[in-house]
C-alpha cells in the first residue's frame, strides 16, 4: 500500500480503435483536493482516457479504482452515480430551460407525484450559493454568460456526485475574467477535498491552477509531474516529444540559403484581429519568403490564416498588399488579390468529395474568373493531366471522384487547385498532416521551390522540425496572441519551444 491515498487510480489502461492504439498501458492517479491537468497534443489520448473513465467507451484492459474499490463504469450515467462527473467544453444543458430546471432535470424533487417547484428552486439557490453564485435560478439559462452556464453545469455535476470532477476544456470559450472566476471556483472545490481533472490547451492556465500534470503522447504515458517542478519548456518538449539534449538538427540539409534581406514586402498586416478568435496582430511577409506560424494547437495559428483570408471577417486592423490597402470581406476577395489558403481540414474545408479530380482542381480558378468564362473542357483536361503528373497524384484519371483518393493525394489535388490560381501568397495549414512520409517530403520540397520562384508562403505546422526546415522566418503564437518573431540563428527547436512556452 502506498503511503499516499488515491481518490481515483487507473492502472494499465489499454484501448484500441480499429487501426489505432488510442491508449497503451496508461496509468493515472488523482488525490483528493488536487487539480490535475491532463496534457497532450491532439490525438495523444486525452479524450479517450476521459471517455474510458466516464464509461463512454469500454476499456480493453486495465483497472480503475475509486476510493480503493475497483469500478467499471458502463455509461456516463453510471459513472456519475459512482461519483465521477464530467463537464464538457460545449455546455450541454438546455439553454431555454430555467437554471433550476437544468440543475435538476431528470431527477426533479417530487411532491404528490408532481414537480415541487419551490423545493427545486430553493435547493438550486442553495447549491449555487455554495459556489458563491447569486443568480436568479428561475431565469432561463441562456440569459447568462457562457461562464455562468459552465458553472451551472458544474453545480449540477457536483450535486449528483461529488468525488471526482472532470473539466474537459471548459475555458476555451471564456474570456480572461470568466476564466479567473472559474479558477476561483475550482480552488474552492479543491479545498473541499474534491479531485479535479482539468483538460486544457492553454499553458498559462495549467500553471495558474494545477497541482499536478500528467502528459500523454500517442496514447502512451509520458509521465506525471508536480506542476512546480516542471518548467514550461520541459512540458512542451514532453508533449511534442522532443528531448532537448542530444537533439539533432538533421533537417538542415533541405533548408534554403539564408534569404537575402531584400525587403520586398508583399503583405503588410497591421492590427488585424477577430474578436473571440485572434487578438490584433501585425505581420509582414516578403516576396519569396516562407513564414512559419508556430504555436501549440489552439494558439491561434489557423485563426491568423482565416482572418487574413477573409473567412473570419476581421473586426479591426488593415491589410495592404504590395503597398495598396485592400478590403478582404470573404475568400473570393482574397483570391482576387492573389491569396490562396489550403485548410487544415481537408475533408470538411478542402475537397468536394463527389466531384472529380478535374473539377476539384479547376474549381478555384473557375471561381476566380467567374462562372461566365467557362474553362473549355479540353483545357480542363490538359490542366488536370498536367498537375496530376507534376505533383505525382495517384489517381485512375482526371474523372476519378476525389473521395476515392488517399489522403495524401487529395492534399495534392487541393494544392494543385491553389497553384492553378497562380497565387502570390500561399497559406498552407498543416499541409502534411496525416499523409505518409514520402508525400510529406515531396510537399516540403514543393514549398521551397515555389518560394524560389518568388511566391510568398505562410506555413503552419504542428511539427516543429518541419517548420524549422521549411521556414525562413517564424511568428510564434500563444493563447491567441502573436508573441514573437524568430529569424536567423534563433530558429532552432530549443529556442522556439522556449518562446512558445514563454520563459
Amino acid at each position, binding site marked *: 500500500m502506498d503511503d499516499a491515498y488515491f481518490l481515483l487510480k487507473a492502472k494499465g489502461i489499454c484501448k484500441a480503435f480499429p487501426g489505432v492504439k488510442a491508449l497503451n498501458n496508461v496509468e493515472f492517479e488523482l488525490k483528493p483536493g488536487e487539480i490535475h491537468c491532463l496534457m497532450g497534443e491532439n490525438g495523444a489520448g486525452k479524450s479517450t482516457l476521459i471517455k474510458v473513465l466516464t464509461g463512454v467507451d469500454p476499456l480493453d484492459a486495465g483497472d480503475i479504482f475509486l476510493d480503493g474499490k475497483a469500478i467499471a463504469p458502463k455509461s456516463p450515467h453510471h459513472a456519475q452515480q459512482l461519483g465521477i462527473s464530467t463537464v464538457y467544453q460545449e455546455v450541454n444543458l438546455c439553454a431555454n430551460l430555467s437554471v433550476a430546471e437544468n440543475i435538476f432535470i431528470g431527477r426533479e424533487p417530487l411532491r404528490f407525484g408532481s414537480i415541487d417547484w419551490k423545493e427545486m428552486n430553493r435547493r438550486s439557490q442553495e447549491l449555487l450559493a455554495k459556489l458563491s453564485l447569486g443568480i436568479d435560478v428561475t431565469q432561463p439559462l441562456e440569459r447568462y454568460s457562457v461562464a455562468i452556464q459552465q458553472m451551472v453545469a458544474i453545480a449540477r455535476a457536483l450535486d449528483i456526485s461529488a468525488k471526482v470532477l472532470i473539466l474537459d476544456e471548459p475555458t476555451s470559450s471564456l474570456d480572461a475574467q470568466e476564466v479567473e472566476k472559474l479558477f476561483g471556483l475550482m480552488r474552492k472545490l479543491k479545498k473541499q477535498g474534491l479531485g479535479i481533472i482539468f483538460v486544457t490547451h492553454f499553458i498559462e492556465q495549467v500553471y495558474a491552477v494545477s497541482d499536478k500534470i500528467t502528459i500523454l503522447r500517442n496514447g502512451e504515458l509520458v509521465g506525471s509531474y508536480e506542476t512546480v517542478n516542471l518548467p514550461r519548456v520541459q512540458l512542451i518538449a514532453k508533449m511534442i516529444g522532443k528531448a532537448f539534449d542530444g537533439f539533432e538538427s538533421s533537417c538542415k540539409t533541405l533548408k534554403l540559403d539564408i534569404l537575402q534581406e531584400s525587403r520586398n514586402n508583399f503583405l503588410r498586416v497591421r492590427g488585424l484581429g477577430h474578436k473571440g478568435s485572434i487578438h490584433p496582430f501585425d505581420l509582414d511577409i516578403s516576396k519569396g519568403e516562407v513564414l512559419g506560424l508556430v504555436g501549440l494547437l489552439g494558439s491561434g495559428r489557423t485563426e491568423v490564416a482565416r482572418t487574413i483570408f477573409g*473567412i473570419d471577417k476581421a473586426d479591426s486592423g488593415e491589410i495592404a498588399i504590395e503597398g495598396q490597402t485592400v478590403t478582404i470581406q*470573404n*475568400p*473570393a476577395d*482574397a*483570391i482576387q488579390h492573389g491569396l490562396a*489558403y489550403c*485548410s487544415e481540414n481537408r475533408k*470538411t*474545408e*478542402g*475537397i*468536394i*468529395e*463527389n*466531384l472529380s479530380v478535374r*473539377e476539384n482542381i479547376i*474549381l*478555384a480558378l*473557375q*471561381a*476566380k474568373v*467567374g*462562372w*461566365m*468564362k*467557362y*474553362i473549355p473542357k479540353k483545357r480542363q483536361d490538359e490542366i488536370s493531366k498536367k498537375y496530376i503528373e507534376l505533383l505525382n497524384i495517384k489517381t485512375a484519371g482526371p474523372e476519378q471522384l476525389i473521395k476515392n483518393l488517399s489522403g495524401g493525394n487529395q492534399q495534392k489535388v487541393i494544392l494543385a*487547385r491553389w497553384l492553378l*490560381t497562380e497565387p502570390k501568397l500561399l497559406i498552407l495549414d498543416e499541409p502534411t498532416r496525416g499523409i505518409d512520409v514520402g508525400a510529406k517530403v515531396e510537399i516540403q520540397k514543393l514549398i521551397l521551390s515555389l518560394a524560389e520562384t518568388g511566391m510568398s508562403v505562410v506555413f503552419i505546422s504542428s511539427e516543429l522540425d518541419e517548420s524549422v526546415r521549411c521556414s525562413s522566418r517564424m511568428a510564434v503564437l500563444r493563447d491567441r496572441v502573436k508573441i514573437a518573431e524568430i529569424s536567423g540563428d534563433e530558429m532552432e527547436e530549443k529556442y522556439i519551444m522556449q518562446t512558445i512556452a514563454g520563459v
Partner: protein
Amino acid sequence: MMEKIQSIWNRFTSSRLCWPLAALFFVLLFNFFFTKDFFTIEMKDGHFYGVTIDVLNRAAPLMLLAIGMTLVIATKGIDISVGSMIAISGAVAASLIGGKLEYVDGVKTLVTLVPMPVAIFTALLVTTLLGMWNGLLISKVGIQPIVATLILLVAGRGIAQLITQGQIITVYYKPFQFIGTGYIFGLPFSLFIVGLVFGITFYAVRKTALGMFIESIGINAVASRFAGINVSKYIFSAYAFSGLCAGLAGLIICSNVSSADGNNAGLFIELDAILAVSLGGNSLDGGRFSLVGSLIGALVIQSITTTIYALGVPPEITLVVKSVVVIVICLLQSANFRKIVFSKWAQKRGIPGEKNAAKL
C-alpha cells in the same frame, strides 16, 4: 459486334438516367397493353391530338417546376412554396388582364385592363421577387430551406386570395388562353415554353461553370466558399429562378382553365415537383444533378396520373394507386433495395450474389 452492344449496354446501365428511363418505359409499356388508344396520335384541326400529347401538355407546369426545383435541390435546399407561387402568379395575371365584355363602337369586344405582356411580365416579376425573398431568408439570414419556404407555402395562398379578393377570377381574354391551350406547329404551346426554359437552363448549367458551382455548393458549401465561390449568391439565385419557373407554371395553369383560383391552383404540386426531381435520379441531399432526369420524372408522374384516369380507377382510390406505383418505382431506384432483393434472388438460383447485384 456483341462486345460493342455489351459496352453500350453497360454504359447505359451505369448511367444516372438508366432507372428514370426504365420507370418511364414500364409505365408506357403498361399503357401499351392496357390503355386503349394511348399511343394513337391523330391530326385534328391542324394539330396533333392524342393521349401522349395530352400527357405532355399537362406535364408542362410540372416540368417547369421540376427544372427550378432541380437547381434548388442541387444546392442542398428545397422549395415547398412553388404551389403557392403558382396561385399568386395566376392571381396577378388574371386580375391585371381581367377581361370584361365591352361594346366598342357597337361591337362586342374583349378588352384588357392592362396590355397582356405587362400582365405576364408583372406576374413573373412578382414570383421571381418572392423567390428572391426565399433566397434571402436562406442564403443571408440562414433559415433552413424547408422552414423559409414554408412561410410562403402558408402565406402565399392568402396573398393570392388577397389579390383576387377572395373570388375566382375568370379570364375571357382569348390571347391569354393561348398560353395554356394554344398550338404551334401542331404541338401545344406550353411545350415550347418548357423547351425554351429547359434549353436556356441546360445551356447555363452545362456550358458555363454554373452547374459545377451549384453541385460543389450542394456537396460541400464550406469548402466551396473557401475555394472562392460566392455561395450565398448562387443559393439566392437558385431560389429566385425557382420562383420564375413557378410563375411560368402558374401562367400556364391559369390560362389552361381560364381562371385564377387562389385556393386550388397548384395545390400540392410542390410535392409532385420534388418527387419528379427524385424520380429523375437526383439525390435530395444535393450535389450532382440531372435536368433531363427531372423532366423524365415529371413525365412519369403525369403518365401515371393520366393512366389512372384513363383506366377509370374510382376517384376515391386514385391517390392510393398512384402512391403504390410511386413506392415501387422509388424502391427499384434504390441501390440498397436492389442489392437486398436481387442478391437473395441470385442466391436462390445459385449465382454469386454480389457480382450480380453490382451489375444490376
